[in-house]
């Protein structure tokens, strides 16, 4: 039996990404697309910088030839606790949940795109046209995730559908959520296990442990956005 405070206290979801383990294979990108019904914009639109990837691998080169190193950094919505996107939305289409998620409600979105302009991480994606899935991809649509329409903003939800399922499971078993209850698509698909997901409010969770690591850093912490995604620096940089 869990006690009452544990039951009522909402989990605080967070992710940790070990950059030492990331090989830039983009399995997370593909898994995310399939899980979250992300529209396929096609090569032409993609060339116009309109492709949508809730998670992307940013690749940066370091050093001069021939001593060049490539750094990979998977970037997804950082679920900032002080999110710049939230206060600027005129209709509360993006807001903060009690679980520390930065939510985006597609129905409510009118498409001012202000949130995307104010996001320092550039992780918000706009549906410039009605979404399309070239056959047979439409058969792989996930029934548990909304199909967005044109004119609305979308972004990573930390796989809210999986979070809800995990919470439901914990509830059935009458216990607090624990590691392994919720595995977002990107985390589950990572072949090198570079990504971790869990409740950072639970100090025993893997994410909370990693957040205390001396390699832990957050992207652009100096902006005061308080992201919920923790990156573990590469050891050669630590």
């Amino acid at each position, binding site marked *: 039996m869990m006690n009452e405070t544990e039951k009522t206290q909402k989990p605080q979801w967070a992710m940790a990404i070990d950059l030492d383990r990331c090989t830039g294979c983009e399995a997370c990108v593909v898994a995310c697309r399939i899980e979250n019904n992300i529209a396929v914009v096609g090569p032409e639109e993609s060339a116009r910088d309109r492709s949508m990837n809730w998670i992307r691998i*940013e690749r940066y080169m370091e050093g001069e030839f021939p001593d060049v190193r490539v750094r990979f950094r998977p*970037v997804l919505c950082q679920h900032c606790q002080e999110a710049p996107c939230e206060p*600027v939305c005129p209709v509360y289409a993006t807001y903060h949940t009690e679980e520390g998620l930065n939510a985006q409600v597609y129905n409510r979105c009118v*498409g001012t*795109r*202000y949130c995307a302009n104010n996001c320092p991480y550039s992780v918000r*994606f706009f549906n*410039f046209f009605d979404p399309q899935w070239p056959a047979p991809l439409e058969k792989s649509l996930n029934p548990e995730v909304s199909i967005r329409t044109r*004119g609305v903003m979308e972004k990573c939800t930390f796989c809210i559908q999986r979070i809800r399922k995990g919470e439901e499971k914990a509830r059935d078993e009458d216990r607090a959520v624990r590691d392994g209850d919720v595995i977002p698509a990107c985390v589950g698909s990572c072949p090198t296990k570079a990504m971790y997901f869990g409740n950072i409010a639970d100090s025993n969770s893997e994410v909370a442990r990693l957040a205390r690591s001396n390699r832990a850093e957050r992207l652009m912490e100096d902006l005061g956005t308080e992201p919920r995604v923790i990156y573990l620096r590469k050891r050669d940089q630590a």
Partner: protein
Amino acid sequence: MDRARDEQINRDLLRSVRETGWGWRIVVAISGMGLMAGVAAFAYQWQEGIGVWGLNRPVMWAFDITNFVFWIGISHAGTLISAILRVTGAGWRRPVTRCAEAITVFALMIGALFPIIHLGRPWVFYWLVPYPNERGLWPNFRSPLIWDFFAINAYLMGSLIYLYLPLIPDLALLRDTSRGLRKRIYSVLSAGWRGTALQWDRLEKAVRVMAVIIIPVAVSVHTIVSWDFAMAIQPMWHSTIFGPYFVAGAIFSGIAALIIAMAALRRVFHLENYLKPVHFNNLGLLLLTMSLIWFYFTFSEYLTTWYGNEPMEKAVFQSKISGPYSPLFFAMVACCFLIPAPMLAIKKLRTITGTVIASACVVVGMWIERFLIIVPTLSHPRLTFNWGSYKPTWVEIAIMTGSFSYFVLLYAVFVKMFPIVSVWEFKEGLASQTQPGPATDKKVFRAASGD
């Protein structure tokens, strides 16, 4: 009172209402077509989605918001200028105010359309309006876009009233000198104006109150528009100077638009005796002042960015100074300062033609300025992996053309319905020059109308 003089003034100033020339018809036809093109482009965008524009990630705003800021800026021509001139009691304002106030109302109407046009789902624009609804949802009052909504509403309402109030006696004049349907329309519009001493007194009092209230509102409107950017944390947007910078820029482009409009009206409706070189000279001096202020603000804005040398800001800065946006940047500096400032500073060049050329430069330059505030910042987000660029499509250009055509059309229709120079204020100006007796002297006539 000099009857002959009065009749002459009435004839001259009501000519635009009474006579319809070919020039006017052609202007209406062309601007009407331009408007239709813009409406068609918007319909296409409504149908297909905003993807028909050139926007992308990361450049989510471009022509749409540029035009929004530009038109709101132009709207500062009127109410602000005419209110300041009224409050400070500048006598030469009399033939200018109406023309400026009309610019305000129409520019504002058009400017206010752009936030709706630019929405991804324009059909739900009313969600920005606070109204009780079944869902129990309200707009987010913390969003600068909602501030925009309130500010533009207050300003548009105020400007309309501020345009309307001094128009009432002229509407009564039109009512009393026209017949048929026109008379009926003007009767309704003139709201039972009889010209009693009491009414004159109250009208002047009310106009004075409006002028005092509208100045802070006008300042606040463009400040809030600037806060759309300044409240964001993006490099070169997050600047405390933006409020006054935008207000100065708005008045700057507003005066320029006013000068162009006045020159056009003068030419088309033969108002040479009313809109005189002295008006262009005075407005030209105002424009020169604003040009200097604009340069001062721009210089401090760019100098601090350069000196601060913060990498993300520097990236945006470099893209404007030496990067892909540098041709636009230098065009802006030329159009807003290098060309107009010397032209307006040299007395010999401060003629009607001179001020109009300078104003045309300023209008173009200020449009570019807004574009350069929006696009370079957006195309250089903090994570350099996501840098992008922007190119407009025909849809955006057509909508922009449509907005300009709409402005010309509205103005043309307005001129057709109402005297563009305030008849009673002009007469009052003549009279006030000749206190205590009535004006009878031709010299005085010239003095009052500013020769």
